[in-house]
C-alpha cells in the first residue's frame, strides 16, 4: 500500500500535493470571506426598521466565544506536536479538546442567533440582518466542517490508524482550522468591536 506515497515521493517543489492543495484552497477562501465581509460592511447601516448592530451585539458574550475559538488553535497545534513526537495519547486528548472548544463556539453562535431572533432580528428583517446571518453562518459552517474532520481524525486514531507518519494529515486539518480561526479574528474586530451604528 502506498498511502503515504505522496509525501515520500519528492515533488518538484519538495512539498506534498495535499498540503499545497490546502494552501491554494485557503488562498481561494480569502476571496470568499472577503466578499461576505464586504457585503456585510456595505449593509451595516441598512437596518431598516429592525434592530441595528449596535443595539443588539453582546460584546462580552462574543468576546468569550472568540477567546474559546482562539484557544482551540492552541490545542490544535498541541495535537499536532504530540503526534509528531509519537505521543498518541496526548494527540487524542488535544484533538478532542479542539473539537469540544469548536463545539462550544458553535453552541455560543446558536445561542447568539436565537437570542437575536427573539429580540426581533430575523434573517429577513433588513439588509443588515441578512448580511449578518449569512456572514457568520458561513463561518459557523466552516467551523462545523472542521469539527467533523477533527472527529474523523479522532475515530481513525481510536481505530489505531493515526500514527506519527500520518502527522501531515493532522497538519492539513490544522491549517484549515487555524484559517477559520484567523477569519474570526478579523470578523470579531471589524464586525463586533469597531463602533457600530445604533438605531
Amino acid at each position: 500500500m502506498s498511502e503515504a506515497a505522496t509525501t515520500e515521493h519528492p515533488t518538484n517543489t519538495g512539498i506534498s500535493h495535499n498540503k499545497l492543495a490546502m494552501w491554494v484552497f485557503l488562498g481561494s477562501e480569502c476571496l470568499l470571506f472577503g466578499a461576505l465581509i464586504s457585503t456585510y460592511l456595505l449593509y451595516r447601516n441598512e437596518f431598516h426598521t429592525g434592530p441595528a448592530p449596535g443595539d443588539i451585539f453582546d460584546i462580552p458574550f462574543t468576546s468569550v466565544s472568540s477567546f474559546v475559538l482562539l484557544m482551540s488553535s492552541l490545542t490544535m497545534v498541541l495535537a499536532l506536536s504530540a503526534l509528531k513526537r509519537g505521543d498518541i495519547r496526548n494527540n487524542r486528548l488535544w484533538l478532542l479538546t479542539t473539537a469540544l472548544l469548536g463545539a462550544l463556539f458553535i453552541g455560543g453562535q446558536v445561542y447568539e442567533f436565537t437570542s437575536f431572533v427573539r429580540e426581533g432580528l430575523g434573517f429577513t428583517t433588513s439588509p443588515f440582518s441578512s448580511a449578518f446571518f449569512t456572514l457568520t453562518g458561513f463561518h459557523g459552517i466552516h467551523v462545523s466542517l472542521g469539527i467533523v474532520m477533527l472527529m474523523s481524525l479522532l475515530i481513525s486514531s481510536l481505530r489505531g490508524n493515526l500514527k506519527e507518519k500520518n502527522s501531515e494529515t493532522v497538519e492539513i486539518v490544522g491549517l484549515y482550522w487555524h484559517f477559520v480561526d484567523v477569519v474570526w479574528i478579523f470578523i470579531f474586530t471589524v464586525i463586533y468591536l469597531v463602533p457600530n451604528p445604533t438605531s
Partner: protein
Amino acid sequence: MNTSETAVTTEAAHDDHDHPSDAKYIQIALLLGIITAAEVATYFVDIGVALIPVLMIMMVVKFFYVASWFMHLRFDSPLFTKFFVAGLILATTVYLVFLTVFEFWSKG
C-alpha cells in the same frame, strides 16, 4: 515562484527540526489572549480617535501570529506564504476598491 530550480529537489521544505516547542506555542497563545483582552477593553474604555487604528493593529498582530506560528508559515515552504498572501492582498485590494466605489468611507 522560484521553487522550480530543478525538478527533483530533496525534501527541502520538510524541516521538522526547528519546529517550536509546546512551551513556545503556549507563550504565543498567552500573547494572543492578552491582545484579545486588550481588544475587548477598548469596548469599555474610551480611547478616542485612536480606537480604530489600535484595533486594526491588534487584529493584524493576532492574524500574523496565528498564520506564522500556528500555521507554520515561517518554517514552511515560501510557496505556501505566496499563495496565502496572494489571496489576502488580492482580496484586500479588490474589496477595498469595491467599498470605495460604493462611497463606503464617507457614509461611515
